[in-house]
């Protein structure tokens, strides 16, 4: 899609400053309450010592290597679970966003609201609820086992599937909202034009709707994959003996072992890995300019 050429450029100094003025307040806020703390964390990750004798800055990069050597399994697992949950969210959420954007008529906001409702219930309660719903002999599995459709020792909880399902459940709205926003912007007349040009349903979707919604999909993947990979609550509540994610490790390192440099290094490793994963993903989408995809 090419942009319509601007008809007339209004070059005024104020206009040139406009984007900076718009970004500035929020940027300052983030600089003070995100960048500064992250720098503190970065500094901490390079220190050595322990919390009784104090931590001293030694620019000890080795912490990163040690952390990676010890916990690469959990790091990779987090990306896999996060990725799987994201794919689930996309497959489940895209049709929903599509239907709401094009077919829900004037009730759009109602449906969006319904999708956001789970957020008003604390995530601890929501996630715990799955333990009740999916109990080994609970309302879902009990009857199926009774009918002989499932073997008696079948269980969903305490497996990787439960963790991935929990992640998908918790982050689905993060996928649906941006995709919806992108789809809602698509001019329905474009679809009619496609139909007038004898494009089939599949062709209309593949050539018109899908490409136009990609920015929303990108944003959705970002908003889902990143927090899902860093989550630790789902693994803690729904997981089994081998479902530990990197978030759980960071929590243990920080709280239980009081190894602040180790915890900070792991946090940076996680952020770095996610950054790389998102770059690769954008590359696969066929764009080299990663962080601007969503803006296009």
């Amino acid at each position, binding site marked *: 899609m090419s942009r319509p050429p601007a008809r007339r450029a209004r070059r005024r100094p104020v206009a040139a400053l*406009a984007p900076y003025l718009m970004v500035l307040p929020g940027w300052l806020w983030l600089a003070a309450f995100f960048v500064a703390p992250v720098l503190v964390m970065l500094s901490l990750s390079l220190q050595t010592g322990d919390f009784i004798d104090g931590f001293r800055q030694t620019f000890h990069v080795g912490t990163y290597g040690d952390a990676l050597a010890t916990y690469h399994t959990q790091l990779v697992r987090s990306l896999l679970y996060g990725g799987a949950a994201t794919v689930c969210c996309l497959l489940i959420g895209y049709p929903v966003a599509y239907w709401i954007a094009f*077919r829900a008529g*004037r009730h759009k906001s109602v449906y969006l609201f319904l999708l956001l409702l789970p957020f008003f219930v604390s995530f*601890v309660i929501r996630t715990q609820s799955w333990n009740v719903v999916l109990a080994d002999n609970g309302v879902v599995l009990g009857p199926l086992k009774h009918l002989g459709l499932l073997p008696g020792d079948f269980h969903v909880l305490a497996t990787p599937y439960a963790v991935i399902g929990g992640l998908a*459940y918790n982050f689905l*709205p993060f996928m649906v909202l941006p995709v919806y926003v992108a789809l809602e912007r698509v001019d329905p*007349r474009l679809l009619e034009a496609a139909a007038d040009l004898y494009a089939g349903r599949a062709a209309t979707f593949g050539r018109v709707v899908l490409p136009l919604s990609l920015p929303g999909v990108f944003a959705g993947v970002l*908003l889902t994959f990143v927090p899902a990979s860093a989550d630790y609550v789902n693994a803690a509540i729904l997981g089994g003996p081998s479902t530990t994610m990197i978030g759980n490790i960071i929590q243990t390192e920080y709280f239980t072992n009081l190894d602040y440099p180790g915890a900070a290094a792991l946090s940076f490793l996680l952020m770095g890995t996610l950054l790389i994963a998102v770059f690769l993903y954008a590359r696969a989408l066929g764009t080299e300019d990663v962080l601007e995809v*969503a803006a296009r």
Partner: protein
Amino acid sequence: MTTTATPSRTVRRRRAVRRGSGLRLWTWLVIGWLLLPIAVMILFGFNDTSGKVNFTWQGFTLTWYEHLFAIPNLTDALLNSLGIGLVVAVVATLLGTPIGMALGRYRFRGRGSVDLLLFAAIAAPEIALGAALLSLFIILGVPRGYGTVVVAHVAFCIPYVAITVRARMAGYDPTLEEAARDLGAGPWTAFRLVTLPMLLPGVVSGALLCFALSVDDYVITSFNAGRTVTFPLWVYSAARTGVPPQVNVMGTLIFAAGLLVAGANVLLARRRAG
């Protein structure tokens, strides 16, 4: 706009009858899936449990509704959460929307680094961020409490607003606003009449998201709340020995209030539609 859209709307509606039903069913299934744990929560708000543990069904009772505010700490926590959520939604939307607009609309030096900043803010593990913020507040000698929670929540909400609004701005046609300016509208009027209405759905969903994120946040809050207790904080610590049924009831009432708002919205829309 509305007049030109009318014929196409009828066309669309006819088509919707043919094709929409499968997707409609799917949407309702997904909504059902999202609401299923909430149904469990509602059910257990009526559970006649005698102990602290509220996991197994003991019979029906309304007693928890009668004694809804029997735990003042819990009530305070709920009010704190709702208040913080509201302030955070407003402030983060005011700060994040212009960023999203600027990113969606202008190419400027440093745009890439703003992008990177937003992404990093979302990618940062909450636990590390919470801990780092606490260190910062301590270094600055800021006592933790209501204010620091708001500050922290706004920081993690800004990127979400910016990204949502930016997605809305993508493909925005700047000629529309220019056309308005050519027709004599001042920059503010052009913004108000042209850009803002186009942007509004993005802004509203961004604000809703902020409110929801703030009300639901546990990790960052737990580090920076000082002696302020929010709803998730209270529930999380109660979960150690068993969440009292009042929590279920409060969840149920919030949920019901949400449904009411949604219902009112439908009625309003109907009346407007005539």
